[in-house]
């Protein structure tokens, strides 16, 4: 596309209460999406209450004084809509998509549940079992296990990003209804929240509706962010391996600590670097390791964006005997890029792919709402346009400098899952190769 798409939302407001409201009418849509973002998640949790943000997200669907458990779901799904929620390290969000005409009738349910969650004790006990099932399910999911092993290794137990958002069975048992309510009052407050509405909406009427339902003041004292230790930087190669009986192919993740979101320009440049290395069949790593040599079944590269400091990550799925040569090749490729840089055409390709991926990911009202809410919660929604502009501005030399600065071949983190050889029991070992 010859000109840059404009992706910013049509209207942004801040209510007197401090709540941010983002509205964006989509001309063709006859549905509307509401996405409510709260600036809390794993990163705000003390270790002994690990999993509280996620548990609270489950409890929101259990209603309030005026809303029976499950009533929110019935109100929305009974009108043909959908609703759900998700919890991450830096955010929790609740969303619903309904026919645009149903917005005035359904929004009060979502607002009531999110703002005035009742957290009834008997429901807490019942839902605890469900969350424990979610943890067991995750423990059977080898992709999840690999990811968690990487996070633990890269951030350590002292940093919240090193701990699972789902919590652990022993911490979940500590979570009482009173604690959940206090946490809810402390974080679900206008100054920590954003409401996004997209789709077939009239902006003025919708603003009035959001103000009526979400515009009230906070109750009780605010909680503030606990201090977070600096992101650990490995002094050498930090390698963590574990074996699994049900694993058929090895999973390899290599990661380098990057930057916090304050360094927005670097964040954007690292996206380009990741695309050059691992997005698409002609990217360097896919081309060499999958297409030419056939040493990996899949390989990808991503820049994991987190508020307090992210990771640049290469992930591969492969036969266990290919592990040594694949890891060596990955490092060799990085050194090559650091020495020789990248070509203009390579950069153009990455630019175009990222720009279009963003455009494609904003086609439907629900995708757009999620994009706006995510950006507003993490960095401010205006950064979305800045991201697009920065993508166009980077030069090959700058991308090479980013690789030199962040991807040290001598200091990185490895998380590795291997199939259990014959009858070796599951084991985990930690090595630190200090230099």
């Amino acid at each position, binding site marked *: 596309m010859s000109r840059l798409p404009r992706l910013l939302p049509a209207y942004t407001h801040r209510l007197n209460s401090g709540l941010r409201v983002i509205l964006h009418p989509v001309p*063709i849509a006859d549905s509307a999406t509401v996405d409510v973002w709260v600036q809390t998640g794993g990163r705000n949790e003390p270790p002994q209450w690990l999993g509280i943000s996620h548990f609270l997200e489950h409890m929101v669907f259990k209603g309030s004084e005026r809303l029976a458990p499950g009533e929110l779901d019935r109100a929305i799904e009974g009108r*043909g*809509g959908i609703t759900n929620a998700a919890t991450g390290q830096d955010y929790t969000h609740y969303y619903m998509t309904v026919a645009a005409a149903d917005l005035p009738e359904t929004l009060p349910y979502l607002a009531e549940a999110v703002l005035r969650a009742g957290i009834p004790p008997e429901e807490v006990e019942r839902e*605890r*079992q469900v969350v424990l*099932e979610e943890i067991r399910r995750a423990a059977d999911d080898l992709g999840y296990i690999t990811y968690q092993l990487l996070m633990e290794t890269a951030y350590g137990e002292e940093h919240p990003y090193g701990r699972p958002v789902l919590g652990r069975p022993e911490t979940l048992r500590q979570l009482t209804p009173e604690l959940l309510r206090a946490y809810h009052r402390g974080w679900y407050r206008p100054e920590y929240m954003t409401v996004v509405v997209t789709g077939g909406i009239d902006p003025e009427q919708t603003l009035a509706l959001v103000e009526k339902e979400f515009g009230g003041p906070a109750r009780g004292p605010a909680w503030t962010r606990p201090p977070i230790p600096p992101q650990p930087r490995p002094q050498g190669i930090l390698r963590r391996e574990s074996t699994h009986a049900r694993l058929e*192919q090895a999973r390899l993740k290599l990661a380098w600590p990057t930057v916090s979101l304050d360094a927005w320009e670097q964040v954007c440049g690292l996206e380009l670097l990741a695309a050059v290395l691992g997005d698409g069949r002609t990217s360097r790593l896919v081309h060499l390791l999958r297409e030419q040599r056939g040493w990996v079944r899949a390989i990808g590269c991503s820049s994991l964006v987190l508020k307090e400091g992210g990771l640049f990550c290469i992930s591969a799925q492969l036969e266990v005997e290919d592990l040594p040569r694949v890891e060596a090749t990955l490092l060799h490729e990085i050194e090559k890029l650091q020495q020789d840089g990248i070509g203009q055409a390579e950069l153009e390709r990455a630019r175009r792919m990222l720009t279009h991926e963003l*455009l494609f990911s904003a086609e439907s009202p629900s995708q757009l709402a999620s994009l706006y809410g995510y950006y507003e919660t993490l960095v401010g929604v205006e950064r979305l346009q800045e991201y697009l502009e920065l993508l166009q501005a980077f030069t090959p030399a700058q991308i090479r400098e980013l690789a030199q600065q962040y991807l040290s071949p001598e200091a990185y983190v490895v998380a590795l899952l291997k199939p259990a050889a014959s009858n070796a029991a599951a084991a985990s070992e930690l090595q630190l190769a200090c230099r």
Partner: protein
Amino acid sequence: MHPTLPTSQRGRLQRLHLANGITLLLGQNPTVEILAAHCFFRGGSRVEQPQQAGLSHLLAAVLTKGTRQRNSQAIAAWVESLGASLSVDSAADHFEVGLRCVAEDFPELLQLLAEILRDPSFPEAEVARERELMLQAIRAQQERPFNLAWDQVRQALYGDHPYALPGLGRLETVGSLTREDLLAYHSTYCRPEGMVMAVIGPEPPETMAAQVEAVLGDWVSAGPPAPDPNLPLPPLEKPQLLKLSQPTQQTTIVLGFRGSPASSADYPALKLLATYLGSGLSSRLFVELRERGGLAYEVSAFFATRRDPAPFVAYLGTAAENTPVALERLQAEIQRLHDTLLSSEEVGMAQRKLLGQYALSKQTNAQVAQLAGWYEILGLGMEFDQQYLQRVRQLTPAHLQQAAKTYLVNPAIALVGPEEALAKVEL
């Protein structure tokens, strides 16, 4: 500003037939610059010979890996330099080539798409590599407990019918697939007559039709088409219990039935039953087994859309010690559909949910094009989109009970989990 256009207009596609037998479904959506084009061919796993299981999947993996004019990297470089995506997927009854791009790049990418459909070269080295990676993928599929359970259920419900097999095929069949097999499959199934192409973009339908005709209008098939295979289904005379022990934390329970084909008058009722049981946070299984019972995190049901009788499935994952009670509760919910007439409120709620969520599943150009083309290739016609909804609206509690009594019988039940947990379960 864009002219306002109701969503339904994007769904109102025009059908056009080219002289060589290609059916075009064309829709205009001037509000976005994104174009989606999906090409469908009859085939998929359903037409594979038993000893060639996985062939359609291998074709999907290799089709874009070379043409007579270009090699794999040149093709990928073309697509990626335009920031587009080109994908090939094999399904039970068809295979599909999908393109998504910025609309102004369409004419150029259409050239490439035509070249790939008409002149693939299936380079020997690419075939060998993708075959090897498919063998790895078949093994890796077993890492998911759900796949292990679902494999057993499918086998029990379908016997020698191709729906018994995973799309990837089996280690013993994929290992012996050759380039010649791909060439034969391509010339038999990847052909203009019977092909369906659905395109939605900002340009008027006439413009898009002319663009497509210019590159595909002179495509003629080499040989005769294959006759539609006559596929036997095994009788299902009694419930079957299948167990596979695995060192997992949860037991995965999959309960499967053989439902109707999509063309059957009973299809809408089975779709509505699946919605009632397993769709969303207010579904019967979610409320009874998760919200009230605390027995599962994931619990759901689905009914597939197929040319031949399609699987109807309810499943969940539960703590090992809850295995017997969770299975009992799941079976009781099915039995309840036989014994009790649902209330008109329950059916009304399920209808509203199905109709509304169906509309919400068509929010992007690609989603609309994909669904219309799929109905067309299944032989239902794109009009099925509206006919189906009309029939869902007319369903009554008695229809649902009748469908449950007819189809939700003689289940194949698969359990995957720790040995001690499975030992406690009998039929």
